[in-house]
């Protein structure tokens, strides 16, 4: 189907004793798709495989018709929110938020004003100079959210 963004076919991933067994699904354009399951069911593994972070033992993950792992990471155009935030610990909140803009060669002055603007909007402008290790849980999640949004 032409409006299929993500197509997973007979995905099998083995990690030690755990097996994510034979998952197939299609996600279409503008569709909101939730994966629900108990702890240890393999939701995170499914998401990581969908983003192409891990190599399946069997099956395929197609992103807009192309095997996702064949697309270079920086050209996949996928936003991925880790449950443990994964902000870059050696960068300030501002550095984290503006990272994707910097990687897209946006001029520094523009990055600064965009980061200020978006931080004000999400009321995290008071912690822009802080490092993730010193941020509260809420601050980390906001930072990470903006991190992905800016991309």
């Amino acid at each position, binding site marked *: 189907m032409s409006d299929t963004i993500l197509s997973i076919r007979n995905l099998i991933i083995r990690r030690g004793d755990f097996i994510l067994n034979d998952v197939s699904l299609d996600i279409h354009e503008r569709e909101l798709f939730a994966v629900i399951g108990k702890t240890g069911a393999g939701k995170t593994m499914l998401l990581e495989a969908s*983003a192409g*972070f891990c*190599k399946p033992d069997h099956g395929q993950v197609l992103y807009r018709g192309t095997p996702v792992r064949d697309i*270079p*990471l*920086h050209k*996949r155009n*996928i*936003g*991925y929110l*880790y449950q443990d935030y*994964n902000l*870059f*610990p*050696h*960068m300030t909140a501002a550095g984290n938020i503006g*990272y*994707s803009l910097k*990687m*897209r060669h946006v001029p520094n002055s523009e990055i600064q004003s965009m980061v200020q603007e978006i931080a004000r909007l999400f009321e995290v402008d008071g912690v822009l100079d802080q*490092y*993730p*290790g*010193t941020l509260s849980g809420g601050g980390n999640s906001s930072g990470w959210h903006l*991190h*992905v949004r*800016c*991309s």
Partner: protein
Amino acid sequence: MTFQGTRSFLSNVMRTETLFAIGLSVRTACVSTLLCFLLAVPTSFILERTSFPLRPVVETALELTMSLPNIVLGLSMLIIFASPFGKALKHAGFPVVFSQNGIVLAQLIVNLPFAIKLSTAAFRDVDVKLEHVAGLLGASPFRQFSTILLPLSRHTLISALILVWSRALCEFGATLMLVGVTRMKTETLPAGIYLDVSTNDLSGALSSAFMLLLISALSLGIANRLTKKNVRWSRHV
């Protein structure tokens, strides 16, 4: 009693031979450490972050090299560089056997597996998810390396660099086999100790040994301080 206090130590250290040995040791250790890391960092990256098919072979070769006595490595290098290949290198203006180039090369070969092991461990300590995140945020593989992996492992890498430098400074076995020990020519600090002992100058040998001990202790102290990761962005516990 052969070691007669600070004055004796200073006069021994200020001898032309000892100053030459210190200069040569520091110079060769700096060059070999630099070359070591220029080779070790990309190799470690390939071993740790890519699905390199020959990884088990390379890892076994590294472990084997590390477990060999330095003198055996030196002997192997002597056989290689005393061959027509080594002679061709000499004619091309790069003599190895009995020359200072050989000292750098001996230190490089002895330390390279060690440097690769340390750099690989440094990269392994960094959560690969952060590089995935950077990639998804638009960073090319090189930018993932330069903006995430390298800054996050730099303290461990710098401390590894210092340890490797210190090992290079103290290298003797491989150097002895490849370049011999000639006063004021291929005389590094450990070689100086050997020469002093063989000429029954125990005071000179002890002074050089003390110099090596001082330099090693200082570099170990710096390396330990850096591995404590007392950096401003570290998570408070």
